[in-house]
């Protein structure tokens, strides 16, 4: 029975992980840019939810709707103004650029919000739900469902909408897409905006479960890396599978080896995956 409970915990965690990684994977897959800012965007989204709840009484589920457009605009502007200039540059330079921006953002947050952990506690609490012998906190369950819904929505946008098809087209062949009349710079910015939106929107969800601190940015970023490699880079289903897999692996890893080894376990998994199956568990690359 313990096994079932841990599996359930892992899947709940994994749903959230999928949401963290989907936007990161999108940016990496389409722009070929590793967005080091992603983790800090998540934390900033968490702060937004925290202050919206504490100061204005806005429920975190609602503040997702506020965070989404803000982060989209922020991401779009950032890509249009700065990152597009470096888009064709070598790996090291784009990585350094987003790393530098991340230092600025995380230092800014440290300055503005201090390093104290902040915890968003719902009042009244939502309680727990029991399914047979499995007990799950309702807020976690809802957060996971919303995270999966957001990830699903991203999948629909990419596969159904005009802008989504343009993003996929640019990912497949930039020159051909440009010849077909796609404004590549605009599409790049839209992609980065969508990635930032996913990060900003998963912030409030994570804020309901984990304490918020400017120092958690790198932790989320590390998870996004592992998930991308696990599930295969640049696909929403890949991020979904990778996220769920990491959630389950971390939960069982904590049981078997102790929670202090969860980072070692997930990063060892990452290196092994890179070496033996770099296309990810689903075994395909490409955005669709």
């Amino acid at each position, binding site marked *: 029975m313990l096994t079932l409970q841990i599996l359930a915990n892992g899947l709940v965690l994994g749903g959230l992980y999928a949401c963290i990684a989907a936007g990161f994977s999108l940016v990496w897959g389409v722009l*070929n840019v590793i967005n080091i800012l992603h983790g800090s965007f998540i934390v900033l989204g968490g702060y937004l939810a925290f202050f919206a709840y504490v100061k204005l009484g806005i429920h975190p589920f609602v503040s997702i709707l506020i965070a989404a457009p803000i982060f989209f605009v922020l991401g779009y502007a950032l890509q249009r103004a700065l990152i597009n200039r470096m888009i064709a540059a070598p790996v*090291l*330079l784009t*990585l350094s*650029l987003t790393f530098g921006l991340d230092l600025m953002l995380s*230092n800014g947050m440290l300055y503005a919000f201090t390093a104290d952990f902040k915890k968003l506690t719902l009042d009244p609490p939502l309680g727990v739900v029991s399914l047979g012998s499995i007990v799950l906190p309702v807020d976690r369950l809802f957060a996971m469902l919303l995270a999966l819904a957001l990830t699903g929505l991203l999948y629909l946008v990419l596969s159904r909408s005009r802008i989504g098809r343009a993003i996929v087209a640019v990912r497949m062949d930039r020159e051909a897409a440009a010849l077909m009349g796609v404004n590549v710079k605009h599409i790049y910015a839209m992609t980065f905006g969508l990635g930032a939106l996913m990060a900003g929107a998963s912030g409030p969800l994570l804020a309901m479960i984990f304490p918020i601190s400017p120092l958690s940015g790198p932790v989320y970023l590390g998870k996004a890396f592992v998930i991308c490699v696990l599930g295969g880079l640049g696909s929403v289903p890949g991020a979904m599978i990778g996220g769920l897999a990491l959630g389950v692996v971390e939960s069982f890893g904590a049981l078997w080896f102790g929670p202090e080894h969860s980072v*070692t376990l997930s990063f060892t998994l*990452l290196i092994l995956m890179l*070496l033996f199956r770099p296309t990810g568990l689903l075994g395909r690359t490409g955005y669709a």
Partner: protein
Amino acid sequence: MRKSALFAGVLFALIALLPLGADAYWLRLGTTVLMYGVLAMAWNFIGGMAGYPSFASAAFFGLGAYTGAVAQKLGVPMLLAWASAGTMALLFAALLGLALLRLRGHYFAIASLVVAEVLRELVNASTDLTGGGMGLNLPVPKDATITSQAEFFFYSMLALAVVTFAAMLAVKHSRLGFGLRCIQQNESAADMLGVNTTMYKVAAFVLSGVFVGVAGAIYASWVHYIEPPDVFDVLYSIKAIVMVLLGGAGSVFGPLVGAALFLSLEELVWRNYLQVHTGVLGLMIVLLVLFMPKGVFSLRMRRKGRA
């Protein structure tokens, strides 16, 4: 080559005169510059010459620091402890290189980036040997004064910098250096023309690890106290790269110049804007990447990010 060696000899001789007219503060700054100079020069082997975006410096640094510190704690004399740290970094880099250097572009960058994280967690968890999160204290010599200590570690770091520089100069003008430049320009073609790419890349990776490992061990003895988040800090990797970019990877003096320039700026920022110094550091990196195409593009890092 002879001209560079001569110029370097004069430069290092001038640096060696620093303790004559400097107090402990300037000696500390000088030691720091030399340490980062070693990190930047060592990164140049794998990043500048072979064109592999390695973020493993922090892993080598931390590994060296802990090997040296644990050895000293077990009673090994200081110099021998430093040597064992170098040996450990050498072996680790060789094994790691054989595994990771099959990856390219972003994938190699990420894999090398997480190595430091894994080592940090392992050190954190093995409390018996390393003290875990409590950190590790190193013995302070009884008869040492502040000035004699500062001078000793300054000269130790200077010696390491001279050795690293000599190795860089020798490799640059050797068959190995030529092979590495071929790998940077087109690895498949180099392979086809008979360059043993695997061996060359591993050699470059080992060179990028061993000096950093020794630097870590000297650092540990110098500051007398280390803890995992301090010595496995990813900023060691990042700063080394930024310094090479700043100084320009083409020249043999680039890494040293970059280290001196970067640390002078950082010291100014740190002194005057303590609360926001990492933010200002970030801004410097952004400006460097965006507006210094010359120092930056002389690197010609490989463009094959997509695998």
